[in-house]
């Protein structure tokens, strides 16, 4: 096959990308057991969160290990406003996003304004989610403490509640596709290029005329807002939230590691990680439980070490490099993946 034929094939292939998307929308028509639908919803939510995380931590290289703090802000804002004021989560959710954005701005400004080192930002995000968890546990009069907040079931779409899991599925599917296309758009835009430059070498980026503080804060606030809305979805899906489930470090690390394994430098990497890893983890947990279930996690840990050490850009980086050798070209991936 000549190069021209290959190029032709791959251009035609691009249209094939839309087929899986159509399939995803058609899934609700099939008779799928509720449990499978549940796993699908969770995987999509996770893919959504990982992709949002990667905007600031992958593209811009500002690694946040406490991203769940925005998840929790979104979830609790919605839940509490609904529980105490009967405010519909559609509006409560917007407020939740706003709060997430504001806190991200404060945190980002504090960390980036004074040119403090990168690892320090990571610590600040970690500390934030832990402290939020502590606050929401201790302020039990308002937040219900460790037991969390339970929301009355109305089943009414006016209140962002649905009777069928399928409806949640459609919503999270749309959200995920939205963030996916947003991420791809960013990667190929001036904003994205500037974030990659900041990730690679901040001082050199400044020398290229990039206002690094402004872009870092913007990426962080955007990522936080998106994550916050994920929290809104969570609270409406489960109708029950606790500090541990929404602010927990476990979930935060899970988001980060899944995105990194899948490849946080590409728009599709984190989703890849989520769809590859999540179902396996959930399935193992369901099938085994008990001590045996720790072995797969142990292997997963070793896999993480291996990928971190030997596979730059995670799985998506590997795919990008593979695509290049397939095309018979040499050199770096055009998708700025590394």
């Amino acid at each position, binding site marked *: 096959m000549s190069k021209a034929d290959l190029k032709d094939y791959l251009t035609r292939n691009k249209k094939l990308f839309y087929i899986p998307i159509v399939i995803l929308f058609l899934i609700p028509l099939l008779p799928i057991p509720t449990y499978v639908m549940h796993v699908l919803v969770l995987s999509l939510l996770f893919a959504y969160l990982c992709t949002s995380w990667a905007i600031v931590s992958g593209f811009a290289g500002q690694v946040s290990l406490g991203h769940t703090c925005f998840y929790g802000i979104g979830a609790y804002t919605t839940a509490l406003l609904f529980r105490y004021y009967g405010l519909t989560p559609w509006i409560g959710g917007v407020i939740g996003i706003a709060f997430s954005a504001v806190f991200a701005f404060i945190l980002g400004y504090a960390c980036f304004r004074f040119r403090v080192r990168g690892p320090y930002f990571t610590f600040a995000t970690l500390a934030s989610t832990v402290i939020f968890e502590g606050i929401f546990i201790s302020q039990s009069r308002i937040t219900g403490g460790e037991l969390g907040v339970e929301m009355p079931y109305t089943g009414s779409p006016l209140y962002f509640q649905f009777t069928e899991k399928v409806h949640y599925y459609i919503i999270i599917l749309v959200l995920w596709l939205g963030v996916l296309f947003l991420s791809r758009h960013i990667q190929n835009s001036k904003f994205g290029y500037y974030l990659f430059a900041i990730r690679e*070498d901040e001082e*050199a*980026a400044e*020398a290229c005329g990039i*206002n*690094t503080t402004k872009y870092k804060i913007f990426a962080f606030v955007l990522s936080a807002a998106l994550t916050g809305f994920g929290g809104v979805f969570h609270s409406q899906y489960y109708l029950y939230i606790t500090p541990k489930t929404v602010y927990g470090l476990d979930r935060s690390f899970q988001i980060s590691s899944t995105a990194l394994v899948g490849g946080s430098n590409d728009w599709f990497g984190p989703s890849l990680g989520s769809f590859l890893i999540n179902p396996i983890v959930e399935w193992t947990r369901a099938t085994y439980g008990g001590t045996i279930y720790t072995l797969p996690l142990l292997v997963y840990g070793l896999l993480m070490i291996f990928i971190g050490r030997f596979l730059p850009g995670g799985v998506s980086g590997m795919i990008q490099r593979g695509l290049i050798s397939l095309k018979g070209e040499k*050199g*770096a991936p055009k998708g700025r993946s590394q």
Partner: protein
Amino acid sequence: MKQILRVEGVTKRFGGILALYRVDLHVEEKEILGLIGPNGSGKTTLINVITGVYTPNEGEVIYNEENLVGLSPHQIADMGIVRTFQLTRPFGNLSVIDNVIVGSLLKSNNIREAREKSIETLEMVGLGDHLDVLSKDLTTGNRKRLELARALTMEPSLMLLDESLAGLTSEEMRENLALLKKIRRERGISMIVVEHVVKAVMDISDRIVVLDAGEKIADGDPRSIANNEKVIEVYLGKVI
């Protein structure tokens, strides 16, 4: 000739170390100013002061009637003063073309335009075959060219080149020097060229400023600098 940059009385201290002391210099339009001096004489520090990386303790940096002191590096770059680094700093994990696109995005707002401009500039500096190479895999010589290309796409009026010839073979040096002359000829960009390779500086500069231990000790055309006693002394008999 109009002065494009004026450095007046710049002093910079780092704790107890006096890196620059009451340095005055100016650059005229379309001029190539050589900046030489022994190691540690403050050349890179001066570049850092001009580009806003360091804030001087005293003095002013006047560009287009404006004092640059206190502005941040990205603002100064946006105003038209662009620098390269002594130890090259490419965006390592980005390809050559992507590196330059980052630079050209300063003046172009869409990627397509930036890309076209970048390809053009890369071809001019001789990296047209290396567009998709990972920039951290480049040789030193090519890295210098990459930085040059990246700087050029930012459409500067003044370029500060920090040891752009260091680590090059004599063949590469000749090529780069010719390139710089071509750039000045075709684009009318003024330059401050910091160099250790004295012969090259003599060749390319219209005028030379010599620093020693943070102070300016000479300022004039290459011939008079070559015959300047203080300069010769400072270089300890180096063949000029």
